[in-house]
C-alpha cells in the first residue's frame, strides 16, 4: 500500500467524492488560490472545473447558507473554511438552519452538508487566527462533529461525512498535515460515531481527539517506559461520541484522562468527564482529569504560546497526578 500524508488524504477524499457523486461540489475561500489551502484542495478546480469547485467572496454567512440550501435541495456540498475563527460569521446557517432542518420538518427533508473547518494555530497568530471551537458545535443537537487524527481517518471521515446525510462539521488540524501512513487507494468511509483504541493498556485510559491523539500516544510511550500502561482512545467523532467504547476502556482501567485541544469550560473533555462521572462512578478508582487549553484567548508572544498549548508532558503530568491521588 502507498503512503499518503494527512493533507494528501484530504485531497484524495475530495477527488474521489467529486468523481463518484454528481451531487458533490465544493465551495469556500481559497479554492482557486495558488496555495490551495495547504495543498488540501490542490488543482481540484482544474480537474473538475470551476463550476463544481467554487472559490467564493469572503461572505462566510451567505456562502455557508448557500451550501446548506443546496444540500436541502438534494446536493451534497462541502463548504470550506480555511480558518475556523472566520466561520463564526456563518453561525446562523450552521446552528439555526442546518442543525435544525431535519427536526423542524419531521424528518421529511434534511441538510446533508459537510462544513470543513480548519484549526490553523500557532506561529504567533493570536486570538483570532487560532481557535479550536469543537466544543461549541458539539453542543448543538442535530449537528455531527468529526476530528480525524490520522491520514486514514482524514480520508475516510470526509467520505463518511458526505455520505452520512446529516450536517457534519469536519475539523482538520494544520499541525497534522505532514503526518504520513498507509492509506488505501479505493474510496472508503469511516463511520461517524465510532472511536478506536490506538494503544491498549490496563492502568489508565487517555481519551483524545485530533492532534491531541498524537500527544496522547507520545505520552503513553513515555509512561510505558516508567511502568505505567496507558490505553489511548481516539474519539474520531466527538458528536456523537462512542460512549460504549470509552466506557468499556474506563471499566477496564478505572482511571481517565481526557485530552482535547479546545477550552476547558463546556468542552469536549468536560462532556466526556461528566458522562463517565455520572454514569459509571462506581467503576472509577481515581478522580478524572482534563487536559485542555486554559480558558483564555490564544496569545501572540512565543513565550506565552508555549505555556498555552497542551503537550504530551501535560498529559503525563495529569496521569501522574491521578495515580498519586489518594481516594
Amino acid at each position, binding site marked *: 500500500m502507498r503512503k499518503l500524508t494527512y493533507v494528501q488524504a484530504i485531497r484524495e477524499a475530495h477527488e474521489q467524492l467529486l468523481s463518484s457523486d454528481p451531487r458533490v461540489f465544493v465551495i469556500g475561500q481559497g479554492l482557486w488560490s495558488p496555495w490551495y489551502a495547504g495543498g488540501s484542495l490542490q488543482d481540484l478546480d482544474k480537474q473538475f472545473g470551476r463550476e463544481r469547485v467554487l472559490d467564493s*467572496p469572503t*461572505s462566510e454567512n451567505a456562502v455557508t447558507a448557500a*451550501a446548506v440550501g*443546496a444540500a*436541502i*435541495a438534494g446536493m451534497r456540498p462541502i463548504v470550506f473554511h480555511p480558518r475556523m475563527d472566520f466561520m463564526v460569521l456563518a453561525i446562523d446557517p450552521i446552528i439555526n438552519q442546518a442543525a435544525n432542518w*431535519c*427536526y423542524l420538518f419531521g424528518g421529511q427533508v434534511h441538510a446533508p452538508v459537510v462544513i470543513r473547518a480548519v484549526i490553523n494555530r500557532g506561529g504567533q497568530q493570536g486570538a483570532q487566527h487560532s481557535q479550536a471551537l469543537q466544543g461549541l458545535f458539539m453542543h448543538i443537537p442535530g449537528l455531527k462533529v468529526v476530528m480525524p487524527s490520522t491520514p486514514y481517518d482524514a480520508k475516510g471521515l470526509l467520505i463518511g461525512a458526505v455520505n452520512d446525510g*446529516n450536517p457534519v462539521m469536519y475539523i482538520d488540524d494544520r499541525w497534522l498535515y505532514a503526518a504520513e501512513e498507509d492509506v488505501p487507494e479505493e474510496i472508503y468511509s469511516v463511520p461517524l460515531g465510532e472511536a478506536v483504541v490506538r494503544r491498549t493498556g490496563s492502568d489508565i485510559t487517555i481519551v483524545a481527539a485530533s492532534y491531541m491523539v498524537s500527544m496522547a500516544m507520545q505520552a503513553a510511550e513515555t509512561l510505558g517506559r516508567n511502568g505505567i500502561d496507558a490505553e489511548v482512545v481516539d474519539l474520531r467523532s466527538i458528536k456523537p461520541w462512542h460512549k460504549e467504547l470509552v466506557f468499556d476502556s474506563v471499566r477496564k482501567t478505572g482511571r481517565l484522562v481526557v485530552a482535547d485541544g479546545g477550552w476547558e469550560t463546556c468542552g469536549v473533555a468536560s462532556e466526556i468527564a461528566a458522562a463517565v462521572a455520572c454514569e459509571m462512578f462506581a467503576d472509577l478508582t481515581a478522580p478524572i482529569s482534563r487536559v485542555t487549553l486554559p480558558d483564555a484567548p490564544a496569545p501572540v508572544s512565543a513565550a506565552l504560546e508555549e505555556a498555552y498549548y497542551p503537550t504530551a508532558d501535560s498529559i503525563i503530568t495529569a496521569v501522574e497526578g491521578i495515580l498519586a491521588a489518594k481516594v
Partner: protein
Amino acid sequence: MNSDGKDNFLNTDLLWQMYSVMHRIRISEERIADLVTAGEIKTPCHFYIGQEAVAAGVCLALQKNDYVWTAHRSHGHYLAKGGNLASMLAEIYGKRTGCSKGRGGSMHLLAAEVGILGTVPLLSATIPLAVGAGLASKLRHDGRVSVSFFGDGATAEGHFHESLNLAAIYKLPVIFVCENNLYQCHMHIQEYLSEGDIYKSGDAHGIPGIVVDGNDVIAVHKAALEAVRRARAGEGPTLLECKTFRWRGHVGPSTDIDVGIRRRDDVCEWLPKDPIPPVMKRLLDLGATEADFDRIAEETLAELDQAVEYSRRSPYPAKHELLEHVFYSGAQSRAEGMTFPVAN
C-alpha cells in the same frame, strides 16, 4: 410599471386564478386570526392580509417544481404555491398530521411537493438558502428557478447583501422578492433604513432592481414573468421590490395601533388599496357575475371548514416521539424525490 390591460400574458383564466389565490389566502388568514383571538391557536402567527397580490402574482409565474423560500409571514406563499390547506392548518394546531408533523407550527411550513423545502422565521435566513437552491439547479441544469420572499426588515441584515452579490457573481437563477410593507416589527422603515427604496440595492450588486406596486397583482405578475425568463435563460438574478402593506400587526391578529405604534395613518391610507377588489372589477367587466364570486367563496369556505375540523380531530404527536428526527434516519428525502437527473 402599471397594468394597462394590453399585456399579452393576461387572459380571463389567469385573472380568475389570481382572484382565487388571493381570496383563498385572505379568508384563510381571517379564519386563523379568529381562531387565535378565540384562544384555540397558540403558536405565533404572522398574518399576510393585505399583501396577497405579491404571493399570487409571483407564484402564478412559477412552475410546480420551482423553489419558493420564505420566512415567518409565509401562509400566503405556501397557499399561493399550491401547499395543502388542511396540512398547514393541522401544523398550526401542532398536530401530527401537520405538514411538519407538529414540529414546526406557523413559522415552519413544508410543502416539498410544490418546491417549499421549509420556511423559517429568522429574518433573512432563507435568502442565502434560496441562493443555494439556485446553485443546485444551475449545477444540475434542471431549469428550476429559486424564489426568495422576504420583508423590508430582512434587508437590514448582512445575509441580504451577501446573497445578492453571491447570486450575481455565480449568475444563479434566483429571484429576490422584497415585500416592503413599511414596518420591521414595530419600527417604521424611515426609522431603521437610510434608503427606503430597496430595489436600489440591485444597482449596488450589479443586478436588475425593479420596483412595482405590490398591491397590483398584474404588475407583480408581469415583473415576475420577466425575472423568471431571465433566470431560466441563464441571465442571473433579479431583485423585485413590491411596495405593499400588512393590515395586521407584526404578529397576531391585532393592528398594533392600540399599543401605540404609529400605524393609524398608514392603515387609513392602505385599506382602500386592497389588492382584491380591482381584480374583481376587471372580471366583472369581462362578464363575471356576483354568483361566480359567491360560488368561489362557498367552495373556499367549505374547504376551510373541513381543514379546521380535520385539524381539531387530528392527534397530537405522542410524547415518545420527542427525540425522533434530531438526526436524519436515512429515509428518502422529499426534496430528493423531486430531484431531476444530473446532466453531464
